[in-house]
């Protein structure tokens, strides 16, 4: 049996797993954006603080994903076996690229532009929304792009703690020693990552072209 025969025969479950996968990634990305963007804006131009926070996010990044999923299971409120634990772990991973690129993007806006914006009497809020964020947008989006592609990959491991998603096929295939079942999980996951990455890449190029 080929991997796509497997896909066709198990259409129903495959669509369900893809949906789960996308839901996990979307939820994690939403949290990472809601936390990461404002935090990144707050940290921009504060070099000392930035080093500490980015350092901490870097440490999280070095924890192997399977271990992080495991660590979070016993944590009250968010822990336990299932999707919520997986979403928290995924959001932690996605945080670093978003945070770092928000900081770099805003820090990278030409000092002369910031000076003239202040000198012309823009308030800090006006500067942020009308000058800093639009000019940082391409860099910011590059961070979101990296975080999304990474999350789609790591989400396959979330199946190990019962969160569902395309990883279910991969783990099942490993258990059954059946490469076709592994591929039935791995190939759609890879395609999802490529799709999301090129879609965001398109938006990014459009922003940079302005």
């Amino acid at each position, binding site marked *: 049996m080929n991997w796509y025969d497997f896909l066709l025969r198990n259409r129903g479950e495959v669509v369900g797993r893809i949906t789960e996968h996308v839901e996990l990634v979307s939820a994690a990305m939403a949290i990472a954006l809601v936390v990461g963007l404002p935090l990144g804006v707050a940290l921009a131009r504060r070099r000392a603080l930035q080093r500490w926070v980015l350092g901490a996010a870097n440490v999280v990044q070095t924890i192997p994903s399977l271990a992080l999923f495991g660590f979070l299971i016993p944590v009250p409120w968010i822990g336990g076996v299932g999707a919520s634990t997986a979403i928290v772990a995924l959001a932690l991973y996605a945080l670093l690229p978003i945070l770092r690129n928000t900081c770099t993007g805003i820090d990278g806006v030409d000092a*002369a*532009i910031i*000076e*003239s914006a202040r*000198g*012309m*009497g*823009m*308030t800090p809020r006006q500067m942020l929304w009308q000058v800093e964020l639009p*000019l940082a947008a391409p860099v910011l989006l590059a961070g979101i792009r990296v975080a999304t592609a990474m999350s789609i990959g790591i989400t396959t491991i979330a199946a190990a703690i019962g969160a569902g998603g395309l990883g279910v096929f991969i783990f099942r295939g490993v258990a059954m020693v059946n490469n076709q079942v592994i591929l039935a999980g791995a190939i759609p996951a890879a395609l999802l990552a490529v799709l999301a990455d090129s879609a965001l890449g398109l938006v990014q190029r459009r922003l940079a072209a302005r």
Partner: protein
Amino acid sequence: MECRGVTYRLPSGTALVSDLNLTVARGETLILLGRSGSGKTTTLKLINRLLEPSEGKIIVSGRPASAWDPIQLRRGIGYVIQDAGLFPHWSVEKNVALVPRLEHWAEERIEARVKEMLELVGLPAGEFASRHPSELSGGQRQRVGVARALASDPPILLMDEPFGALDAVTRAELQREFRALASRLGKTIVFVTHDVREAIFLGTRIALLAQGRLVGVYSPKEFLRATEPEVRAFAESLHSGRGDEEAR
């Protein structure tokens, strides 16, 4: 506009401007001349409160600068810096309309004003309004910078080496036009430069700064005759035939 005993110190204690006393008369162009690091730009930023003085007082339009709301103060003072500092993601029209829009002018009034300002600096609105700064030459960008600073008709204009990054021919052209414009508009202008030719050509008076202190204030004629060593150094750079290009 007036500076009374103004000192600005960095947190480390180094004074960038020391005990500066200076009066700028209405409608004049006062040049702040000095070498790099003499405190010219710092002085300018103290006037529109991009920096706050450590000591002393600055009076703007009869009121202490510290009594103004900094945002309102800056909107009433045009500000032009080297390379113009235009917003690259905005069209020329949007850049020039910046302060009028911040001040919530009616759209028709903004439109008319932008057109008027662009014509004033020699850029026909029909051709230039929709362009982006990246589609302009350095000289054109600087013209837009001047138009933007004048858009809300502020009584005071601060200019920080506005022509410093231009080639010699374009610079001379802009200096000539700017001199005519300044005498026509009657704005009070504080103009920072390290170029002594520019200072003599544009200035009603020239305030020479050295190491954060005021050496003296001179009319262009007095400046050429003055005997202070720092003035001589500048006046001689004029005669030796080398402008600021090589000095930079």
